[in-house]
């Protein structure tokens, strides 16, 4: 059975999207799968990765007209007969949550969280979430002005973390440093800025996928070995931390999570207590790493949605290393012409 899967987030740039990793995992799954890239810009590298993405289309921005977004998907669907869409970008998830019933009516399946699940994992509601799943949350305050910042640092003390609404986090040791980071992050990403109590420890991530009924279809934990300036994992090692795995399963059960996710936590050095930092409501950019270790979550998600048998185990080896690297492709300007003029790539071999 040939399955056609459309995937977004194929921007494999310095702040990489998960799309290319998802397509690679699908291609290596053994399924007969056609991958369709949904891009927002003609220079998203995934468009040019012919070995893992069969064809790409330019999409209208999700922040624009809902109707235009739906029409574009219907247009692509009329030519590709899409079975499944895997949304891999935070910014487009709200529109997909809105239009999922429309897509279902035309035969396109998705495994994404509900609006209530999405709301519960909001960065500003971490305490509530932490209580629900039996872990801790670092104390934090949300700031939209310098007065808020001064109040927050007085309350939380130094050192503290100054974090952006989407990316970037800095450790501030003084009021001057905190103000500097506050201005820098606000200029780049806007408000609110979150000031968080500093906890001495290491950051860990768990990737997983929930079936929407409180069950996970596989989880995989890593320690971040190096991260980029934007806080993205660059190198990582797989770990077996049962306490962390159990906490992740409580997230899936407690929220009846539906879809891919990334559970970001910190383990305090002194106590080894788990502090939840964030839950991202989609697969992370390192989604290929677990697939390479036998936990192919994109494939399992597609199999679940298309009524096929799928694995749910989380049996993987610790001590596997992920090394991310940069690479260059040499393409012809006509490839760029094709996607920027017609909004889609040529068929392979054309």
């Amino acid at each position, binding site marked *: 059975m040939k399955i056609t899967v459309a995937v977004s987030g194929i921007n494999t740039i310095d702040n990489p999207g998960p799309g290319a990793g998802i397509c690679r995992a699908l291609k290596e799954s053994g399924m007969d799968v056609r991958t369709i890239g949904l891009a927002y810009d003609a220079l998203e590298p995934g468009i040019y990765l012919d070995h893992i993405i069969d064809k790409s289309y330019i999409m209208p921005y999700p922040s624009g007209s809902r109707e235009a977004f739906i029409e574009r998907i219907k247009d692509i669907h009329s030519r590709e007969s899409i079975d499944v869409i895997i949304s891999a970008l935070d910014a487009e998830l709200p529109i997909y949550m809105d239009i999922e019933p429309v897509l279902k009516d035309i035969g396109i399946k998705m495994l994404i969280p509900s609006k209530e699940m999405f709301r519960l994992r909001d960065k500003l509601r971490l305490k509530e979430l932490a209580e629900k799943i039996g872990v801790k949350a670092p104390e934090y305050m949300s700031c939209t002005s310098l007065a808020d910042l001064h109040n927050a640092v007085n309350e939380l003390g130094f050192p503290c973390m100054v974090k952006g609404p989407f990316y970037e986090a800095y450790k501030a040791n003084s009021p001057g440093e905190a103000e500097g980071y506050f201005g820098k992050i606000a200029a780049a990403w806007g408000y609110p800025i979150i000031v968080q109590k500093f906890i001495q420890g*290491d950051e*860990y991530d768990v990737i997983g996928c929930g079936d929407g009924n409180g069950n996970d279809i596989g989880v995989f934990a*890593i*320690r971040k*070995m190096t991260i980029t300036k934007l806080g993205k994992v660059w190198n990582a*090692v*797989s*770990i*077996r*931390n049962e306490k962390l795995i159990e906490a992740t399963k409580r997230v899936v059960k407690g929220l009846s999570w539906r879809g891919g996710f990334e559970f970001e936590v910190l*383990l305090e050095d002194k106590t*080894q207590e788990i502090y939840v930092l964030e839950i991202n409501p989609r697969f992370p950019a390192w989604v290929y790493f677990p697939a390479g270790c036998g936990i192919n979550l994109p494939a399992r998600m597609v199999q679940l949605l298309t009524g096929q048998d799928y694995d749910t185990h989380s049996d993987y080896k*610790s*001590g596997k290393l992920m090394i991310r690297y940069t690479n260059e492709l040499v393409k012809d300007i006509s490839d760029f012409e094709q996607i920027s003029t017609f909004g889609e790539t040529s068929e392979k071999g054309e």
Partner: protein
Amino acid sequence: MDKDKLAVLAVSESGFIFDPVTGHSYTANATGLKILELLKAGKEPDEIRSVLLDEYDSTEDEVSVDINDFIENLKKYFLI
């Protein structure tokens, strides 16, 4: 001493130690590696001291200090 933790530590012949629970890795010298192997084999510090005294040209005090320091380091890094 956390014997369960000790049991899961991956220790190679080169002295490379990988903690699969935290993902941290460390390097031990030949003496440290020997002590760690003996701890993993369930030996108590007194038994380890006897083994090291047989193998190394050191005094009992020197060996005791080495063993205690190494065990303290393992505790510091939550490896035992």
